[in-house]
């Protein structure tokens, strides 16, 4: 068997894996309450790899990395501030990572995963409930969770800005 044949077989096996989304389309949205009003923002995702077969959760994995320097909240100077050392410090920490550790099913098309979330130099385990839906050739994932931004050394205590940030991660792709 030639090397070319081996590579082709591996490639086809990869393509044939119905659970594997490579570079899935993925978005990260967040909201945080500032002085009683919700501020909405987005982060661009650098890459998202999802290997998720509901029949084989033991071998499932989800890995998403987002670019904190892409943050947008609708106010340019605020976005610049969020990139600086007291918030995301993007020169030193150019990536936010979400790496799955385990999953279990909680209902029809509903799952819960344990993930390591790394922001700046802090990694903490978080639990994310999410849904998985198929529509035609497309598969859609959607999960949301909350973090305390101070746990990750993002900003400081504030009279106006809440510590709780609600994050929604959506991914979709074609199999």
């Amino acid at each position, binding site marked *: 068997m030639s090397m070319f044949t081996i590579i082709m077989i591996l490639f086809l096996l990869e393509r044939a894996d119905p659970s594997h989304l490579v570079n899935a389309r993925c978005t990260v949205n967040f909201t945080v309450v*500032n*002085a*009683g*009003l919700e501020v909405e923002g987005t982060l661009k995702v650098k890459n998202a790899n999802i290997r998720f077969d509901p029949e084989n959760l033991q071998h499932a994995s989800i890995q998403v990395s987002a670019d904190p320097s892409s943050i947008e909240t609708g*106010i*340019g*100077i*605020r976005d*610049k*501030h969020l990139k*600086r*050392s*007291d918030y995301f410090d993007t020169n030193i920490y150019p990536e936010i990572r979400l790496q799955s550790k385990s999953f279990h099913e909680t209902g029809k098309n509903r799952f819960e995963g344990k993930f390591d979330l790394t922001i700046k130099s802090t990694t903490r385990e978080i639990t994310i409930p999410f849904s998985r839906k198929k529509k035609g050739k497309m598969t859609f994932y959607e999960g949301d969770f909350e973090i305390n931004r101070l746990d990750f050394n993002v900003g400081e205590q*504030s*009279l*106006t*800005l809440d510590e709780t940030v609600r994050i929604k991660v959506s991914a979709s792709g074609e199999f």
Partner: protein
Amino acid sequence: MKKLLLLFVGILIIIPAISFLGTFNGIPKTWDVEAIKKFHLPPPDTSVKVTYASEEYYNALPDHVIYKTFPMYIREFEKPGYIDSLRNLVPEIMFDVSTLKTPADWIKAGELVFNWPVAYSPVGGNLSQLKKSDFENSNGKITSDGIYPFSRYVLTEKSELIVGSLSCASCHTRVTDNGEIIPGAQGNIFNTIRFANAVRTQRIPFPVLQAGARNLNYAPWAPDIKVAPDSPEEFARAIESVPGGSVDRQGGGYLYPFAVPSLIGIKEIKYLDRTGLMKHESPGDMMRYAAFNQGMDMLTSYDGFIPGGKNKNSELPLPSEWNHPFGYSAKKYTDAQLYALTQYIYSLKPPKNPNQFPDALIDQGRKAFTKAGCVSCHTPPLYTNNKLTPVNGFEPPKDHFEKYDIFNVSVETDSVSALYTRRGTGYYKIPSLRGVWFQSAFFHNASLTTLEEVLDPKRLRKDFVPTGFMPPHLKSMAVKGHPFGMELSEKEKKALIAFMKTL
């Protein structure tokens, strides 16, 4: 052993008693160089070696003796014989620390200090030198009863009447459109026309003014920045271009006036000066601020350059030789005088707000205040988060995050005052919005005069003509930075302005 124990207990009792007696009146020491080093921020070029005048030097300066002073009227309001009647009075010392027993006594005494002028010139003739016509087309103000609060008459020796100016009140007194006085508010009274005329006609020799301007404005770390005018006419126009609510002051840079802050509510404000030059954590800090700004800052050495120094700014003058370019007398306030001043300043209250808006409009404005992001920096209840923002071109050194309160993003306004002047620190202070309804100078260089202008995106364009300060050689200029609120709808802006005018 028993005797030794008694002696030890005695010492334990006596030491606190002595300490208490030493500070029984709670008056901090103004010129405490170690305290000054902590409260004074360094220049933006942190390699510059800053040396403050020594305690020995400060203590050798003679004290101000505060006499009774008298209002200066314009001629049309002056009662016949007023000036001669003052000359006939017996000079009366008004500030006497031994009479101050209650907090109210200290506040009242502080008002005397607030109004005590530090630059003097003799009064000739028997009529006011000020006329109503001096105030036509001028940004100077007089009260409804014809008083010009920038200056006051002083009698320190019988029959020798002098006119005094440059008290705290000279810059921190506002006269409203109705001619009422708001002590401590953003000042708007200085009549620039008379000074500009004196410059234009060279009644003050131009070389003297030029040298003075250099001493007032030169910062050794910015040798290429223009610090003095080239001609009397240029200088006269520069003086005339400084609008009410702002002041061209020592260390501030030529053609870079500063908007005057309101002192009302200053007790809760953590940094003083637009550039956050000095920390304010106690009355002692406020006393130090006053001492610096009434002349001592001209005696600080920056890499060997002493603005008020002799021998080409290289040596401290003897106290008797000191000659401030603004004409200050070479005197210092006593610690008691400065402490009284702080008590008066801290006691200032805002005037009754005449603005009335529907509750729904104010509520809408409050929401716009949050939506536009104003609230993050102008955080209630003080409507400032009491922090410093670094300017474009300055990256805060790591140790500053430990020492100072930094909101670590530039709002991208003009950075010259913060970088290239002696008052520069690399930062601007986030000002409180309390009392904006009785202010008329906005942004640190007072380029804008209304909140509508602040929210107008047209001000970012080169062809914009600001209603506030603009260097006289320009026909238009962009007032950059701080774009918050510009994206709001017109309706939201109106509501936002209404809300801010209630603060």
